[in-house]
């Protein structure tokens, strides 16, 4: 199970890398989405997927049962997903405005702020 997930993380990262380096706005956005999913999945898989026992202390015991799933990475992933969602929402609108204002879908054409005499 963990092997499949690790391979999946690698696959998502490579898709993300490939797409982020493309020229089109939309492909870069989808690449960023893949990156986010891969990073979140890595947060889940790397600390080790537990035996599926929920980390709830039974009545009368002081510790959760042996082999419980670690709740901390799950909390981290939730936070990361929410933050990623907000960021992606902003990026989507920014790219839409950029497409409208700059009249291009090609990242290679965005060189005006790098040139010697930038326009105002």
């Amino acid at each position, binding site marked *: 199970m963990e092997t499949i997930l690790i391979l999946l993380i690698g696959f998502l990262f490579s898709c993300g890398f490939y797409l*982020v380096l493309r020229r089109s*706005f939309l492909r*870069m956005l989808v690449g*960023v989405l893949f*990156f*986010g999913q*891969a*990073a*979140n999945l*890595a*947060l889940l898989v*790397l*600390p*080790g997927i537990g035996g599926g026992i929920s980390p709830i202390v039974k009545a009368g015991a002081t510790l959760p049962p042996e082999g419980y799933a670690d709740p*901390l*990475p799950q909390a*981290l992933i939730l*936070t*990361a997903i929410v*933050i*990623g969602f*907000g*960021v992606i929402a*902003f*990026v989507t609108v*920014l*790219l839409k*405005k*950029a497409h409208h*204002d*700059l009249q291009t879908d090609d*990242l290679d054409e*965005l060189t*005006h*702020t*790098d040139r*010697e*005499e*930038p*326009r*105002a």
Partner: protein
Amino acid sequence: MDIPIYAFLLIPIIAAVLQILGLRHPSYQRIISLISTGLIAVLGCLLVVQVKHNGPIILDVGAWKAPLGIQLQADMLSALMLAITGVVTFCSALHGMAEIPTRDERKGYQIIYQFLLLGVCGSFLTNDLFNLYVWFEVMLLSSFVLLAIGGKKAQIEGSVKYVSLNIVSSFIFLLGIAVVYTTLGTLNFSDIAYRIAHQMGSEAGIRLAAVFLLIAFGVKAGLFPLYAWLPSSYHTPRHTVSAIFAGLLTKVGVYALIRTFAVGFEAQHHFFAPILWWGSLATMVMGVLGAASQFHTRRILSFHIISQIGYMIFGLALGTAGAIAAAIFYIIHHILVKTNLFFAAAAIDRIGGGEDLKRAGGLFRTAPWLVVLFLISALSLGGIPPFSGFWAKLALIREMVNGHAWAAAVIALLVGLLTLYSMTKIWSEAFWKDRPGNAQPARPISAAHVIPMILLAGGTILLSLNPTFLFELADIAAQQLFHPISTP
């Protein structure tokens, strides 16, 4: 009296909420901004005094104990950074009163400014790696918005480049956090330091985590070769926004590098020191060469940010307490000087004939006050005695010589020479030569543009004439970094 460190987080939130309630009244929003940033400045200075006398302050949020609970801590480094944040954001809030048009404020500029302040203060106060990620994101998202407010084409283009690189770096940060938690089982900085020092994690895992975190913070700080987003975007937004970005945001990245690598991964210093060493030297050189090729005021200054970041990170690469103290002094000096230079660039843009240096000129005759204010900051940046830049560079080069880093010292001195060259280029183009015919017409300049420059120049002069007090504080900060607060 004990200063509650959660006040630094409450004040910007309350200010933002009050400003949201007064969204249609820009003058009311501005007053709240000034009050909020002024309070942070005053509290920050009081915090420095308190930490100096009583030691670091720790707050377990929600009374959940570290290392599982999130811990806020204010040691001398955090206190110094909070104080300088307050001062610089106060000056920018003043400057913004004249520079930011009301239509931007109706779109929420002041509110997002408070959230930026919140993210910065939170980053400086947290002792937990994932909490640092959260505050980084608050700061980053606010900076995305501030960069784009105004809607000019150059801004949108700069935003796309800034946003895309920084988002990817955020995800790499997440990956680094995942590897840290896997290897060490904890996310608290002090606990990370403890566990690494006691060989509690696999070396390969620790080094992998260090690499991911180095890339993530390197993008934020502007380390070679990850700085390409900076000169493409920092010269596009409103001048106030440029100034606050230049003064503050990259230094948060440097702070994160210091906190992670001088505190957390300190026991692995021999591994990442060569990377930081050569990376910071390349940063110094590339930044100043980039600046030497530009003729646009804010682009020159943006490349200089990169170059000076190289100095600060070299102090971290040397790794001794003295070197890190020199780096901390350099950070404070540079924040003051850089923000002031960006304010000067705003003034040059208004009354000197635009940002293109070939079309600007004549300021020596028309604005002698600007000459004085610009020269204080420019000579300080270049490292001319008796200004603060001289002391900062002297301290760093003395540490380099003590560490037998001869090549690095030579490179640092040459880079300083080239920095001076770019400053004299701005001087001779915008101030010394006569105003050319195709200069842009002068626009009115108000007291709100000038007073922040006077305040920051006054700070630089204070620092120049009495650098010892800041050196003492920086020494205390470096010593506290090497003895992190112990977790229960």
